């Protein structure tokens, strides 16, 4: 910054050396996490090429022969690939589209509750389920939705004269149960970011609105909502970019059973099963399916960002 005129050549090298000399301790600090980053994040990214090779353990990732798009073709021609992709889309978008309005609504409600103690109580209890492990949540679903006498939901259904529903094994119920239990677990957590955005809205706006005789509903519509819109858009783009993320397959995997597999098999669990849990694991095939999923993911992120740019000034880049 100080040497704006020094453009290139030896001046540049000299500056680099000086930077290294003055900040060598900062480089030393950052080197530890950077080594972790390279080893555990970027080496696997390089290893993605296994999707285009016939992986043989003896030859390693880079020594195995090229296979081109063989495994991608294999997946597209597999009899169940269409249903797996559709299941993935259904499960992921259900959570996103049903959850988002609820998270924003919860934040607006909390922001408009006058009693501070009540607000605290609600915020604290809606946040609590976030800390329960997915294993326990799935265990709880099994208990609550059981058709045995202890399954409280079916007890209520029967009480009102209905027939017990096989929630955990009926394929049609899978995405509903998965998504609403996600929302139950995440509502308080996801609302926090909007509460933060609401608390940063200029209070003089509210004062002016009260002067002008705006009702509380009008204040929500004309001040609160526009005030948090940029945050909502950014979090929505980020959520779209993560929506089909392979990262966490644990909850879906834990909720699967042989009876609901028609609708519960998604790309990430399928990758796990063909690649790791199978008796004859096919690493290349599983990696190809995973890469296909990442490609969809990335396309969604780009599309969401473009869309946000068009309708609104806020975007990720």
């Amino acid at each position, binding site marked *: 910054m100080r040497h704006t005129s020094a453009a290139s050549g030896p001046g540049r090298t000299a500056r680099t050396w000086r930077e290294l000399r003055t*900040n060598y301790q900062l480089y030393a*600090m*950052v080197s530890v*996490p*950077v080594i*972790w*980053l390279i*080893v555990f*994040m970027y*080496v*696997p*990214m390089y*290893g993605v090429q296994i999707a285009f090779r016939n992986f043989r353990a003896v030859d*390693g*990732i880079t020594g195995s022969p090229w296979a081109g798009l063989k495994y991608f073709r294999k997946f597209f021609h597999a009899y169940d690939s269409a249903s797996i992709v559709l299941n993935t889309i259904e499960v992921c978008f259900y959570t996103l589209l049903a959850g988002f309005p609820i998270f924003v609504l919860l934040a607006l*409600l909390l922001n*408009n*509750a006058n009693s501070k103690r*009540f607000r605290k109580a*609600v915020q*604290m209890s*809606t*946040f*609590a*389920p976030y*800390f*329960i*492990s*997915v*294993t*326990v949540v*799935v*265990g*709880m679903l099994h*208990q609550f939705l059981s058709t*045995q*006498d*202890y399954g*409280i939901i079916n007890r209520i259904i029967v009480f009102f004269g209905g027939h017990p529903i096989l929630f955990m094994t009926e394929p049609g119920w899978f995405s509903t149960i998965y998504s609403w239990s996600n929302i139950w677990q995440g*509502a308080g*957590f996801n609302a*926090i970011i909007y509460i*933060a955005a609401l608390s940063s809205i200029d209070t003089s706006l509210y004062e002016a609105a009260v002067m002008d005789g705006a*009702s*509380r*509903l009008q204040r929500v519509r004309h001040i609160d909502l526009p005030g948090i819109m940029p*945050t909502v858009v*950014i979090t929505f783009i980020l959520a779209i*970019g993560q929506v089909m993320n*392979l990262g966490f397959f*644990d909850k879906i995997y*834990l909720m699967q059973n042989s009876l609901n597999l028609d609708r519960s098999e998604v790309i990430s669990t399928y990758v*796990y099963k063909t690649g*790791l849990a199978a008796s004859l694991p096919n*690493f290349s095939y*599983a990696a190809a399916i*995973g890469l296909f*999923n990442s490609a969809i993911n*990335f396309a969604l*992120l780009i599309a969401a960002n473009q869309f946000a740019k068009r309708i609104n000034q806020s975007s990720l880049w």
Partner: protein
Amino acid sequence: MNNVRETGGDRWFAFSVYFLLSVALVVTLYPIVYIVSSSFSSPSAVTSGKVWLWPVHPSLQGYSAVFRYAGIWQGFYNTLIYTVGGTLISVALTVLAAYPLSRPDFKARNPILFLFTLTMFFSGGLIPTYLLVNQLGLYDTRWAIILPSALAVYNLIITRTFFQTGIPPELLEAAKLDGCDDFTFLRRIALPLAGAILAVNALFYAIGYWNNIQNALIYLKDNDKMPLQMILRSILIQNQIDPSMTSSMDTKALAERANLREQLKYALIVVSSLPVILLYPFVQRYFVRGIMIGSIKG
């Protein structure tokens, strides 16, 4: 403060706000209360569906069954190792990355930060990561639970934001004039000022390790290393309950035993979530603060 008279519409508005929030309160709390009540009820009351809200025929049989269950304690022990060890490693990595990346005079910070953020959207995926862990000789070791997911970029970003906004640049200048180097500044000045963000990090990571099951599903084979969540999975979801646990009670009727097998699950849910639940009231405000710090940037 509010001397403007509320209109009828405003009263409806306030009523709806409280009504909807009360619904949210009941929906989130009821399942938790129900689980706790069931865990303190008698096994037969639970399995015959007599519990609605409060414990019925209060009993501690479920808890004593959990305490006699050896596999659960092995799981607790393993999870404790993963949580304590993992949290230490994760917090250290996060601070070592976040502090340099918060310094405006650190020239490499933008490219490095970019490399970190990129991994939020791209990753090698399950299979290449698994092969790497295998190749490093970490498969079926305790390290495999910790190392592959040791650093969360989200935590890195909120910690970096904290260092940027929470530590005045004048402090560094003054310390430098006194001959303080970067290591010393981080250890003696920046970290003591960063108590809140360190707490947030430790809690995020600790709860993450405590609840994690995915790494065990992918990288562990040996039963002796399985974390608590894997034991929970076999009991709560796969319904596999150690026969030795029930055979020690031959005197009891068979039906009673089947009831206990079911009711044990409620006590187990409470016991396994207890460490997190006990921490919760204290950590909640740190969590909220942590997320608020993170959102300033967004």
